[in-house]
């Protein structure tokens, strides 16, 4: 686990997108490899690499059926994966909340050598926290 509490297996742009995409399906559903590839926009090789990492962590399950032209690979989020994503979302929400609270204090007591504006203008953590809530639907 990382210092900030975010699961390092999930905390990578592509794997995070994979997890969130698979989490939109109801429990018990799966997605074909080709449809997942379409949705994420990755090459098959890249997708396999990231899926393998998630599979090694027990977060996704892949299943191959048929052979040759009829071969079908499906991917599904496991119960552990769903729990891990919920935990990830909760930690992320907490980090964004803390950042939101920290910002007004920083404006009152600016760090030496800064004018107190810092990165405030470019960050909107309130909106981002809402995004994190919506993402894990």
């Amino acid at each position, binding site marked *: 686990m*990382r*210092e*900030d509490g*975010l699961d*390092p297996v999930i*905390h*990578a*742009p592509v794997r*995070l*997108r994979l997890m*969130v*995409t698979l*989490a*939109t*399906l*109801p*429990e*018990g*559903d*799966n*997605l*074909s490899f*080709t*449809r*997942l590839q*379409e*949705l994420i926009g990755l090459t098959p090789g890249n997708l396999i690499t990231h899926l393998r990492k998630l599979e090694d962590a027990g977060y996704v399950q892949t299943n191959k059926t048929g052979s040759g032209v009829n071969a079908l690979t*499906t991917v*599904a989020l496991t119960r552990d994966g769903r729990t891990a994503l919920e935990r990830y*979302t909760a930690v*992320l929400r907490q*980090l*964004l909340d*803390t*950042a939101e*609270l*920290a*910002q007004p*204090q*920083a404006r009152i007591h*600016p*760090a030496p050598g*800064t004018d107190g504006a*810092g*990165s405030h203008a470019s*960050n909107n*953590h309130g909106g*981002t*926290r809402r*995004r*994190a809530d*919506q*993402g*894990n*639907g």
Partner: protein
Amino acid sequence: MNQGSGMADDAGASVAAGMDAQGAAVIMQEAGGQARHELTINRPVIFVSWALVYLLGYGVVWLSVRGQRPFHAPEGWALALLALLALLALGVTARVTDRAASGVGGVSQLRRRIYWLSLAVGLLGVYVMQPALRYVGASHGVISVFTASSPLLVAGVVLAAGTAAWLNWCAFGLGVWLIAVAAFSGFAGPAGVWAVDALAVGVPFLVMAGITLARGRS
């Protein structure tokens, strides 16, 4: 992120890994929104297409029978138009469903198959019963009421029962409404039944399209 707070340190650690907390939240929102958009069936389109079947198709059949004294039967061209509209709506429904459900397997796929199979078998039963009614000497009026309302009864029962799988009270309410319309519209008579069904089904379908669209946007 550089104000010296504990959070700043945490977030800084995340930035070092190539993605900060804010970036992760943005990715989650975008990926979730895109997946929901791509994998959710566009129900408003389905509701509107079936609303047109009832408002136009049933409406035209009613126009073809409303002046008949004594009542004999809907005009062939009106029934042909109704069948054509129903086929078009069926095509739209299949296309919209296929677009969202393509590549999705598992429990939802199985539920969908059972749902459509139940509907197809129910409608087949209804259309087999029609000649049977004629065969036993049912009047034109009875056959007209049966033709107009029995598909609604089947659709209503399948929809209401199907919501046991989807746990959707709104769809359950619509199913019960279809059953009620099928049960009571016959009292409007062999000609009036077409007008009552057209309005009592077409308008709620348009309302459902609006509600579903508004829910999707909120």
